[in-house]
């Protein structure tokens, strides 16, 4: 579904060149759950941004179902995000003036055939809290709204940047469970970026990044149930 071919990202700060990503090559299959693991500054977020079409590589290609994302203009990238990508953020990024339901509907209005909002809220277990505003929801509930918002558009790929980073241990586990189940049941691919190595045990594959380069890619034959995770 997604192929990264020799992707480089080079920032120029004054006269110094910073290589945020170097020679990155990997593929993502349909319905795969991938965790990108690496310490701070390893290039995880840069990689996610390039896949999500909010940043462009300095060199290399990103192919999404055969379409060259790197050749798209600003409008094309917006359409790519709209139709193919769902985002889950560390700080949820919900619109405080919209209820949980409205936050989800907001995303659904972007696509022609969105999923049913009640069904999606049911998947993340928030049907009863649908008419509450973000300020009336817990962190975990807010992140579930964020996941519902990502899947309502029915995207083939969801990118999650430290989705448990702002949650307590138990809530974080629940969120991972939801994501894992959606991946399995809905066939949506996930790329989860994190520095928390414990989370990687739930992945189908683990991409280790170090200094902007893929250090290793490990296949997890038996992904762990998030309920059994501990960190």
């Amino acid at each position, binding site marked *: 579904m997604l192929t990264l071919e020799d992707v480089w990202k080079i920032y120029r700060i004054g006269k110094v060149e910073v290589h945020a990503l170097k020679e990155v090559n990997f593929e993502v299959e349909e319905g795969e759950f991938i965790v990108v693991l690496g310490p701070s500054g390893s290039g995880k*977020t840069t990689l996610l*941004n390039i896949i*999500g079409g*909010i*940043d462009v590589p300095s060199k290399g290609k990103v192919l999404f179902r055969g379409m060259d994302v790197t050749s798209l203009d600003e*409008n094309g990238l*917006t*359409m790519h*995000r*709209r*139709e193919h990508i769902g*985002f889950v*953020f*560390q*700080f949820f*990024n919900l*619109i*405080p*003036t*919209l209820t949980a339901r*409205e936050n989800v*509907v*907001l*995303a659904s*209005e*972007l696509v022609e055939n969105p999923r049913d909002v009640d069904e999606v809220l049911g998947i993340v277990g928030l049907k009863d809290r649908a008419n509450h*505003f*973000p*300020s009336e929801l817990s962190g975990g509930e807010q992140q579930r709204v964020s996941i519902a*918002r990502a899947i309502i*558009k029915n995207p083939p790929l969801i990118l999650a*940047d430290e989705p448990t980073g702002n949650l307590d241990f138990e809530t974080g586990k629940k969120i991972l469970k939801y994501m894992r189940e959606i991946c399995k049941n809905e066939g949506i691919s996930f790329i989860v970026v994190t520095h928390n190595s414990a989370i990687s045990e739930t992945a189908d594959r683990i991409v280790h990044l170090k200094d902007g380069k893929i250090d290793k890619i490990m296949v997890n034959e038996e992904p762990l149930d998030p309920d059994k995770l501990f960190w």
Partner: protein
Amino acid sequence: MLSRKVIRDISTRKGMFFGVTFIIFLGISLFSSFYISYLNLSDTYSDFYEQTDFEDAAIEFNYAPVELLKEVRKIDGVGEVTGRLAVKGSMKINNEQVVLLLISVPDGEQPKVNKLFIEKGEYIPEGAYSSCLLINEFAKYHGIHAGQIISPELNGQKLQLKIAGIVYSPEYIWIIEEDNFFVSPRTMGIAFIPYKKLEELGYKGKINQVHFTIYDKDRRDEILGKAKKVFEPYGVKNFYTREQQPSNQALQLDLAGFRELSIMIPGFILFISIFAIYVLLTRLINEQTPNIGVLRALGFKKNTVLFHYLKHSILIGFLGSLAGVITGYILSVLMTVQYTGVINVPYYVTKPHFEILLAGMFTGILFPSIAGLLIAKKAADIQIVDALKGSFEPQTKGFEIDRYIPFFKMSVLTRLSLRNTFRNRKRAAYSMFSVVAAIMLIMNSMVFMDAFEEALDLQFNKVLNYELEVRYSSYVNSSAIKEVKSIQGVREAYPLITTWMLIESGDKSKSVSLIGMDNQRLYNIYDLRNELHMPPPDGILLPSSVASNLSLIKGQKIFFFTEKGKRESKVYDVFDHSLTPSAFTSLDYLQNLLGVDGYNTVIVNVNPEDEERVQEELEKLDGVLQVNSKAVIIDYINQLLEFSYAFIFFSLLFGSSLGFSAIFNTTSINIMERRRELATLRMLGYTTRQMGFALFVENMLIGILGTVIGIPLSYFVAYLYLMSFSSELFQIPFVIYPRTYVLSVILIFVILAFSILPGLRYISRMNIEKVTKEVIS
């Protein structure tokens, strides 16, 4: 180090700080330019009056012996006295008949009162009886120079007068003749000639005016009353103190308008600046709450935090008012030069008026400091623990206004816009207030134009339906009208009597022009409400300003002086006049009252293509003193109004700038505050255009609400504003044309639309991945 932070805070939010500073700049530059212009003009008039020994009082009467001046001089408290003759002659210039007011001056020396300022040439040399001095405006208009000969006609005698000099007179800075504000130099001039020369023309030993100074100013009215008594047996036509002198009264009214504007509009703008600073600093402090917590945790005192944030507003105030006073001073000089160019003063006085510049600086710093203090105190009072956690302003979910709009299905993005409008109620109130303020400034400027257009339309299309007015030097009989009608091209002609009356009521008296006419369609009596009145069969129809000044009511008996002596009548009715006041009665009644046969004026309706020729032929008729063309008066008024239109243009510019700065400021703050939300929307796949539309909806909603409040409020303020222009001398109708509403609303919505452009630029260029990760609160 904290001071450096102030500079950095400002430089990182340049646009927003500039917007607020610009509001202060607008307020202070308007204040200093208007107030200094007012003082400059006031100084100019005072200086000119002082140099020319301007009169303290004057009396106009029917011809009386010159010896009576001795009686005036004897009155205790009277200073210098000048008696003189003032008679109307006529003159041909470029084939056009013009009126020339001939005023006598002493032989070889300047008059003791109302000296003339010699612009070019010299004062009339002793014994040069065939010389004269010509008023500058008239000479300039017709291109007449010192040394040239003019040939005016008086009482059938043609004079040859050499122009010794071109002059300015303190009595004619603003030329007003018989209550007419708009005396065009094309049709009327003033010449000063030696008394001896004028005496020779049938006025031997006579005078009809006395002008004098009073050294005991406290007893001025009493002294004027005593002097008036001296001339009463000869029929007093008018009398006035320096304050009531027509030219001076008009100038003082104008000055008062300048002074009011210099306080009212800037005060209003500075009031808005308080809200602008409050909104800006609230945003800044909200964003920097954790920093405040750190500062306090480090050991900085509450007062240090308070002064730190107060410094932002002081700096805004300082920069805005510094730029404001500098610009204001430059504008004041330009305005003084421009204004004095329109009226008849030989020079202008401009001073820096440091006290006003300092007052401007002080006010410009004080207003933002008030707002700054309120918000800085809030920042200083915040608990360290809370501050370290983040925002001190509670996050609101917004007012769900969309729930009250059930009529049509709207997208969530539109709902979001509607809710965002009232998300921060204080800010929404400030935005709406800014729209209201901008509408008020814009509408007030245009209402001024509407009122003038309406007044001129009323006067020249409804009241005066004739093209030409023929004035005779004395009363003529019915053959005169036949003569006028016989001229080819004349469609209609009707007789009038135009005279004056000095009404006495208790210890008050008032001079007003009196018109006697039949009910005909060329001259109609319309009031300010467009209601038509008939010339009364008996009694006098009095203008409201005169009636209220003399406390006269309908049906009341009145006594008054006329050119034919003292008479008595009754107030038939009172009406609200437009522009300048005149009293009316029927022609028959006035003829009986004055004891005259015939009339002294004929109004004429002509075929447009014949007007010029008919005017020339009318001027040739026996006994015709002057032929006034309505078109010439309208042209002259339009020339005078050019200055007003420039003023209106600047008012519109200021109003629009104010609206733009204020709305731009809140829009920018809104965008900055919600940048994470906006970045999220972009990440979700919303385009910049869709988000621009959402912001546009928010601004439009503010615009609609501001307009709904602003229009009735502007109507009320415009009414007060126009009423402040009405005086005994002058009244203009209160009217707002539909175009004013439409243009004001369009302008406001254009401003609102433009004010989101910088924000849109920010959204399209923002680093969305960085912004989505920011923890704002």
